[in-house]
């Protein structure tokens, strides 16, 4: 049932042409970024992760604003539940994210941009990182698409603010340690990026702890967004 809705959403998203700006920007950026040869593996992947974070926020906001009011009303009745509508949107976002992450990970390997040969460990951390950052982007995009505030200006500004704070999180904590707890509310960008090191890349206890936090954070956020979605459309 939701498969039909996913097809509906993908067709609608493609035909809306709103995918072109983020996709072009992202792919263009990847090509431009890897015009330099002999770049370090994990640092380069860290940068493409952050780019994916930004682009996926954009994609999620576009996917959530595909329908007008009356189309949404009809879909709420046609689908078995409103939850299917929300999950259908997320699946479309994840599919888009997978394509973009694939490009970001595979392109430098194909054109041999890195100064070393990328091993399985590099690729595994890169896949995990890109997917995590894509999920953070989808979370931020869907969070601000499901607030009761109608102003688009507000939603864009707020999401950009959240992205900026989450990226600058480490620096903010260094200057004002008191904000450490407040920053727990923001996507754990810093924890994930910590593992993108070129010097001593290994998967140890800290990696798994941070991964657990990323998964837990994503689940909590999806629960909160689901509740916000129900409240907005009740």
């Amino acid at each position, binding site marked *: *049932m939701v498969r039909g809705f996913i097809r509906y959403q993908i*067709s*609608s998203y493609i035909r809306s042409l709103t995918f072109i700006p983020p996709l072009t920007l992202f792919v263009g950026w990847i090509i431009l970024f890897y015009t330099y040869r002999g770049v370090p593996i994990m640092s380069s992947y860290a940068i493409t992760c952050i780019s994916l974070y930004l682009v996926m926020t954009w994609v999620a906001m576009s996917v959530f604003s595909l329908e*007008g009011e009356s189309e949404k009303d009809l879909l*709420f*009745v046609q689908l078995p539940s409103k939850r299917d509508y929300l999950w259908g949107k997320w699946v479309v976002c994840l599919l888009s994210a997978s394509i973009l992450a694939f490009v970001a990970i595979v392109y430098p390997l194909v054109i041999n941009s890195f100064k070393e040969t990328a091993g399985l460990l590099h690729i595994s951390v890169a896949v995990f990182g890109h997917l995590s950052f894509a999920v953070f982007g989808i979370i931020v995009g869907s969070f601000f698409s499901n607030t009761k505030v109608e102003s688009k200006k507000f939603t864009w500004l707020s999401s950009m603010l959240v992205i900026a704070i989450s990226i600058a999180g480490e620096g903010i904590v260094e200057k004002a340690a008191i904000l450490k707890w407040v920053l727990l509310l923001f996507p754990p960008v810093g924890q994930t990026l910590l593992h993108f090191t070129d010097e001593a890349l290994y998967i140890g206890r800290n990696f798994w702890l941070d991964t657990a936090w990323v998964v837990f954070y994503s689940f909590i956020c999806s629960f909160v967004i689901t509740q916000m979605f129900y409240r907005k459309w009740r």
Partner: protein
Amino acid sequence: MTFILEAVQVSKEIAGRLILQDISLSCSNNTKLLIRGKNGSGKSTLLKMLAGITEPTSGQIVRSAQKIGYVPEHFPESLRFTLKEYLLLVSSFQGGSKASIENEISKYIELFGLEAFLDTSLKACSKGTKQKVGIIQALLMKPDLLLLDEPLTGLDAESQQVLIELLNEAQTPIIFTSHEEALIRNVAKEIFQIETGEITVQSMKAVPKKRIRVAFHRREDVKDLPVSQQEFDGNVAVFTVEGNASDEVLRNLLQKNCSILEVRELT
């Protein structure tokens, strides 16, 4: 009696304005209920609440209906699909084989005369065509309850007649809003007055005669019809028909590829 849907003391407030207050109604297997009220009295809001699109601010709506078919007053303007694509996609939400879905769609497409628009973008379709698509998508769901918001809006006389017949033949309970006398008289068994919250049973009034103007190809196509009066002018005939027989006459004429030019009620 088992209820398909029951609304108990339902109220709805939108942007601080009370739209509906203490509405109670129920719907069983044989309900054909018209919701009547002035413009802005909250009829569409009530239908949306019954459909589960919005929730009441207070009160409760209990639904045992698994599938609800909903026809909005205004079909979405900006759908990015062709007519056929849209119907195929929304039917697939309910599951079922592609062949059976296509069969069902073909049946309704033929009934509403939409063959020529199958590959037309919905954005480019007329209001009436979109309204027909809105009706078909609801029927394709094989709903346990049908909710229709002004379903005759924008429909030509022929399609209005088709819809009225479909609704009369349907075993599905129906709740609808309409300002069209033809639909009210032919379909509604009960009337719910939204301002007072009263439900009245619709008495079976004598159905007025109808005047049907039709263009035909061969004279024998329009022979032996149950009409009380007939006049011919070339390939155009004007029939006066008893109200109860008008559906049958129209069906016969359509089957014989005649073009219905006008259907008018005689007062």
